[in-house]
């Protein structure tokens, strides 16, 4: 069979996470049947699900956070009782000046999650030496708490899966949808411990399923409800709203329409935002007391739900409780603006910053006709000519870059630290985008001067660490073979050391563009 290395690069780099080194034969396999190579992954039953020993469900993780917070609070109270004179109540601003890096992020978000000043004790910075110190808090390195441990375990599972995947197309789809429906771990302790579970539970089961199902799973996931404040939103006329003199928070409702379905300019008004906010009041998760259900699980709180019918986008929704919101989401998923928004974003990610309109139109039609069948959407993309003909000009994101490097070097991570710190440094901290619109997906974002310089520093570090044991020209064969430019080949050949050659290979246009 004729071999087409250029098409193999498209299969591996544009659709997947890059060729694996070692004995994988990825590039050769992809070059004999590029489309088949990409599609093969979609055919695996349950190939998207991620189950690894030790990864727990959202309620289990929520309960772990509650228990941890109780424990910290008790330790602090015990310390206070033991030495009341020694613990002048540090001014809150003082207390906030010295949290550790992670604690700082949690800190800001902790303010949102925890209303009462007494809950300060539950914040990790209470464990800092400068805060009122429980006996255990020494300046010595602290052991990881359950939140940090969980986050690292989830990150590791995802990284290992991405490194080992044959093509990586399904893992790229997971990353795409996870970024579309992003939450941020920096919102608070619950968000950090739930970040991985959210992706495993709400995103992965539907990546090759149906968009309406993914939408419902996402908006009912405790991590999303926490991230966009819906657990605090009360129907103004609901029993809880009346009793507690609190009311609506329209954060989640707005982002559902602006970012998750219709897109900005998708034809909704401020009135629709408020209306949807009312419709989804009561969508929350059970708290630590577990009055409404198992702590940390999704519940519909009738007490918090705004009674009565609502009008959204000109359609009336009867007062059917939970079903009212589910009906609204189902209609949003089928709205023509949603199809257009999703198709555009999808093509922008896979083909070009400026997505070819004919391809967008085709995918939009597939989305509409299949009622949001995401496998059909992915297949239509792979079957298109545009996706194979467009030049490989998109910059790999920092996550793509690090995963592709690990795959080429056949290094299955056993510790996520290097990846996590690399992602932080390069401006794409895992599961922690700067806003609910996720990380950007354009060259303007990822080909900036500082970013490129930092990539080079990271590539040089990898070269220094691993360059001794590899033949850079072998790696070039695995990565691009005869599709590599003569200049890249020469640059690698002429490097003064294997370490340097590896750094240059990882930074070559063949490894940076997809």
């Amino acid at each position, binding site marked *: 069979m004729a071999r087409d290395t250029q098409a193999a690069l498209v299969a591996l780099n544009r659709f997947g996470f890059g060729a694996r080194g070692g004995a994988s034969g990825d590039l050769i396999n992809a070059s004999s049947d590029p489309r088949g190579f990409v599609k093969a992954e979609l055919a695996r039953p349950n190939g998207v699900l991620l189950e690894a020993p030790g990864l727990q469900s959202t309620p289990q993780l929520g309960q772990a956070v509650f228990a941890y917070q109780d424990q910290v609070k008790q330790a602090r109270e015990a310390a206070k009782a033991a030495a009341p004179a020694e613990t002048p109540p540090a001014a809150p601003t003082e207390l906030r000046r010295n949290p550790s890096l992670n604690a700082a992020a949690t*800190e800001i978000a902790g303010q949102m999650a925890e209303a009462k000043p007494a809950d300060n004790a539950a914040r990790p910075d209470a464990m800092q030496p400068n805060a009122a110190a429980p006996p255990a808090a020494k300046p010595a390195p602290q052991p990881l708490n359950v939140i940090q441990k969980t986050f690292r375990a989830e990150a590791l599972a995802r990284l290992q899966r991405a490194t080992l995947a044959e093509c990586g197309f399904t893992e790229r789809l997971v990353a795409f949808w996870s970024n579309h429906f992003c939450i941020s771990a920096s919102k608070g302790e619950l968000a950090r411990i739930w970040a991985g579970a959210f992706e495993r539970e709400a995103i992965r089961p539907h990546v090759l399923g149906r968009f309406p199902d993914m939408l419902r799973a996402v908006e009912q996931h405790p991590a999303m409800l926490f991230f966009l404040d819906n657990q605090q939103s009360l129907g103004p006329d609901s029993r809880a709203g009346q009793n507690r003199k609190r009311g609506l928070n329209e954060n989640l409702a707005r982002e559902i329409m602006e970012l998750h379905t219709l897109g900005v300019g998708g034809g909704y008004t401020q009135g629709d935002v408020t209306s949807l906010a009312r419709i989804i009041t009561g969508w929350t998760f059970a708290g630590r007391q577990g009055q409404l259900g198992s702590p940390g699980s999704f519940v519909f709180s009738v007490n918090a739900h705004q009674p009565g019918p609502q009008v959204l986008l000109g359609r009336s929704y009867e007062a059917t409780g939970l079903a009212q919101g589910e009906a609204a989401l189902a209609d949003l998923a089928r709205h023509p603006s949603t199809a257009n928004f999703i198709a555009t974003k999808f093509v922008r990610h896979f083909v070009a910053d400026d997505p070819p309109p004919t391809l967008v139109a085709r995918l939009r039609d597939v989305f509409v006709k299949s009622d949001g069948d995401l496998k059909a959407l992915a297949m239509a993309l792979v079957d298109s000519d545009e996706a194979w003909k467009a030049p490989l000009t998109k910059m790999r994101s920092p996550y793509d870059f690090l995963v592709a490097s690990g795959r080429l070097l056949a290094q299955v991570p056993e510790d996520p630290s290097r990846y996590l710190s690399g992602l932080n440094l390069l401006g794409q901290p895992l599961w922690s985008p700067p806003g609910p619109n996720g990380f950007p997906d354009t060259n303007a974002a990822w080909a900036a001067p500082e970013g490129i310089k930092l990539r080079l520093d990271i590539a040089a570090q990898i070269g220094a660490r691993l360059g001794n044991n590899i033949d850079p020209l072998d790696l070039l064969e695995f990565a691009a073979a005869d599709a590599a430019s003569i200049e890249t080949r020469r640059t690698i050949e002429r490097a003064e050391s294997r370490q340097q050659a590896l750094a240059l290979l990882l930074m070559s246009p063949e490894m940076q563009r997809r």
Partner: protein
Amino acid sequence: MIDCVENRLLTSRRGLLLGGASFAAWAYLPKFARAADGRDPRLIVVILRGALDGLSTVGPIGDPDYAGLHGSIALTADGAHPAIMLDSFFALHPAMPEFARMYRDRHAAVIHAVATPYRDRSHFDGQDVLESGFVGPGRVQSGWLNRALEALPRGERVSSGLAVGPTTPLVLRGNAPTVGWAPVALPQADDDTAMRLMELYRHRDPALASALSQGLQLDKAASGDDMKATRGNAVAQMRQVARGAAKLMAADDGPRIAALAFDGWDTHANEGGPVGRLAFLLGGLDGALAEFESGLGDRWRETVVVVATEFGRTARINGTDGTDHGTGTIALLAGGAVKGGRVIADWPGLKLANLHEARDLKPTTDLRSVIKGVLQDRFGLSDRVLAETVFPDSASARPMKGLVA
């Protein structure tokens, strides 16, 4: 559209590269001095992403409706954490003592009830308008600060703006070449490896060549005693970023214009009053302003820092002790060149009938007027250039006079 803009960008960078200037763009940055009067002005634009609650940062505590609307998070003149009175009507958040000091010294000013022309409530579109300088959101790939740079007379004038952070903010993207810098905490690649890679990019990927050369040059210029990124909290990070930018800008051949963005101002729930989440962030901003002041040294006299955000937040707190997306907010000016010590506001009042759509502080000042005023006074840009190129279709928003000494 995007394609076209990007090609132009590429072309301009390639032009630079062939000119031999790119690799040394940093070192050859011409001195910016206005020949006529020998002034050497600096401008720093700080974008607060997420929509700052102007009513909680500079509270109109003299307005009879303020306390009721802002409820549990309203600033007050008394209590455990009293706000700092700026005049008899407005009070500054107590987390900003440095700004208060600058204000007392008449080197800081507040513009209240201000907004861009954008009247919807999407962060991302709002930031687009704020940074692009266009009347509405669109797929624009250049920012007003970049176009202002482009409009400066060639020759002895500076040709580069400094983008602080891992990615260039839209306000500074465009045809005028920019350079970027962010704190690093890594052992760096050696020069030889960098040069080889540069050579490869020159032949195979001009866009990456340009990006890399700028990244390399800036990194050198900024590295020094304490410029390695240290583990620190968000406040420390804001300070650190400001410190690094100030250091670069203080150099004789350093960039005269910089832009940076701080995230996290989207306070929907439990925003906090004098202490709490917003207070924490404002403390970071205040620290960053102090870092600019000390890092710029003598140059501070010639400096204006403009702090702006995409829109404000609701006048009335929501059901969760926070505020939802609104309209009117504040802009802050700080720096030795600011004619400060005043709150500039055509105050619309907070009576329900006076609120924009019965929910937001009504904007009475166009943010573009403020920025145009600063640009005109600092860099002598004409009304026409400001109204057509820098802020297209903005003739009705006249430059505000007298903001800068």
